[in-house]
């Protein structure tokens, strides 16, 4: 580190710059920052402008999600829970939609009243849930022997990857209503979910294709020689292996998707970033940008970390290595 003059100088200046910025941060934290903009608006960050007397619904959903996350990450020793966990994770997403929108005895709440953290999580989870099977379909389509399906899938994937996400979101918000027949209306949240789904599916398809191509041809030959049909080969031999290989890349997609949901704040949804912008527009909190954005960064960091941990668990669960360890 201090082997010669230049190294020493570099090290000392890096340490100095680091300490100096730390000092500035602490000075700001201790003397200038005012966190009222965060503490007074916590319900808004969490639920947006959801009707106050109905806030228990998004609150309940978030609690269920937190519970599932804790159970998944820390794996308590209740053996019965391990088996229902995947079903619970898939089921909790439609449950969230149901709790937020109401019906079945619950007071209906229009989607324009949804917002904040809840909406961010909802956008991300719904899009991921829908994009995953769609992505698998396009990945299979791209490997199809039927030219029509093959080229349509390839065209779709290439087209969607060639367009920036924001323009697809604009398309979803502004153009989809124009194409729909009179009287048919799709709310903004659904339009956003559709746009995200279509976009992410193309990337998921490519990630799966990467995993697919890593499977040696000899696997397919063995499967064919056993008399399995094309569909059975895909279902039992290719997909399990391809998805396992593609899982780290798919984790990336999920985290990217979460962060991309913030783009919807430009298009009028009051998800986490959107609600923060409207809080900042309130004259009472004028100028408190830094506090709000530091707070936001913290929340996004926490969600991303939790997602990464959850998906690490999934990776672990499907890995052959783990199954082997369990055997020994």
């Amino acid at each position, binding site marked *: 580190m201090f082997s010669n003059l230049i190294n020493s100088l570099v090290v000392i200046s890096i340490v100095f710059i680091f300490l100096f910025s730390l000092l500035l941060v602490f000075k700001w934290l201790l003397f200038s920052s005012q966190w009222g903009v965060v503490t007074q608006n916590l319900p808004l960050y969490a639920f947006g402008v959801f009707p106050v007397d109905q806030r228990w619904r998004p609150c309940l959903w978030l609690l269920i999600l937190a519970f599932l996350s804790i159970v998944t990450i820390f794996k308590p020793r209740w053996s019965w829970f391990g088996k229902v966990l995947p079903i619970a994770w898939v089921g909790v997403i439609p449950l969230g939609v149901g709790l937020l929108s109401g019906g079945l005895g619950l007071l209906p709440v229009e989607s324009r009243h949804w917002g904040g953290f809840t909406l961010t999580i909802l956008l991300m989870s719904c899009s991921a849930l829908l994009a995953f099977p769609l992505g698998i379909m396009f990945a299979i389509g791209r490997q199809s022997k039927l030219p029509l399906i093959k080229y349509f899938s390839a065209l779709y994937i290439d087209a969607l990857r060639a367009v920036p996400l924001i323009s697809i979101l604009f398309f979803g918000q502004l153009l989809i209503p124009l194409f729909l027949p009179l009287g048919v209306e799709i709310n903004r949240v659904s339009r956003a979910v559709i746009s995200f789904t279509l976009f992410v599916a193309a990337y998921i398809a490519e990630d799966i294709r990467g995993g697919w191509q890593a499977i040696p041809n*000899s*696997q397919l*030959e*063995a*499967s*064919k*020689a*056993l*008399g*399995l*049909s094309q569909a*059975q080969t895909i279902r*039992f*031999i290719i997909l*399990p*292996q391809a998805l*396992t290989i593609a899982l780290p890349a798919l984790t990336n997609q999920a985290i990217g998707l979460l962060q991309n949901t913030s783009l919807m704040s430009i298009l009028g949804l009051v998800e986490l970033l959107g609600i923060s912008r409207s809080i900042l527009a309130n004259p009472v909190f004028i100028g408190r940008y830094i506090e709000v954005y530091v707070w936001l960064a913290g929340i996004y960091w926490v969600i991303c970390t939790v997602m990464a941990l959850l998906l690490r668990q999934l990776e672990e669960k499907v890995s*052959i290595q783990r*199954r*082997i360890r369990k*055997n020994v």
Partner: protein
Amino acid sequence: MSHIIRANNLVKSFTKGLRALDDISMVVNKQEVLVVMGPSGSGKSTLIRTFNGLETFDSGKLEVVGVPLYSNHDERNIRAIRRKVGMVFQQFNLFPHLSILENIILAPMKVQKLTRIEAEEHAMHLLSQMGITKQARKYPSQLSGGEQQRVAIARALALKPELLLFDEPTSALDPERVNEVLDAMRTLAQKGMTMVVVTHEVGFAREVADRVLFMDSGKLIEMTTPDIFFSNAKHERSRKFLNQIEK
């Protein structure tokens, strides 16, 4: 004796002038063990892979387990053949994400629609024949090459095939593991299983084969009993090959 494979004038060309199969006509009888030998690149692997439709051919006619196959390679006929013909590969080609037992019961459950219990019962029986019952719950990567290849044989047997194809089954094995696989094959032959085996194992061919087929550059050079082939081969090329592998 009735035949199980009948090939008439099979031709397959890779590039112009180079023929992987050059006018092959032959018959394999039921309960016969046929060993296919030849230098590398002679087309022996190509030949046995055409028998279950893994390779196509350009002209000629093939009939396997009573199902005809022409150069148009009707998918339905190929699947009908594969349901009755098992194959064992050089690199085992077990499915790494499935346990040994799952590897074996997959095809019986999905192709023959057996229940899991029936399929597992039969699979355990096959594993005990192969002497590897203890490994049933393990995964392929935990097994030695010889064990993996015996699992592959059990998997090929799971569909109760009328014919087994072996594509150099011992070439990827450590020398000390070769015999356990050859022993398993020997037992199968004694039980009357019809087998076509591509191999360089002279000892196995001498002892187990009913006939030996010798190929060179896509041509069937000679097809005769092992006694005649190894001591008194008719053709110059066969003798040259035998000299080389016995050195």
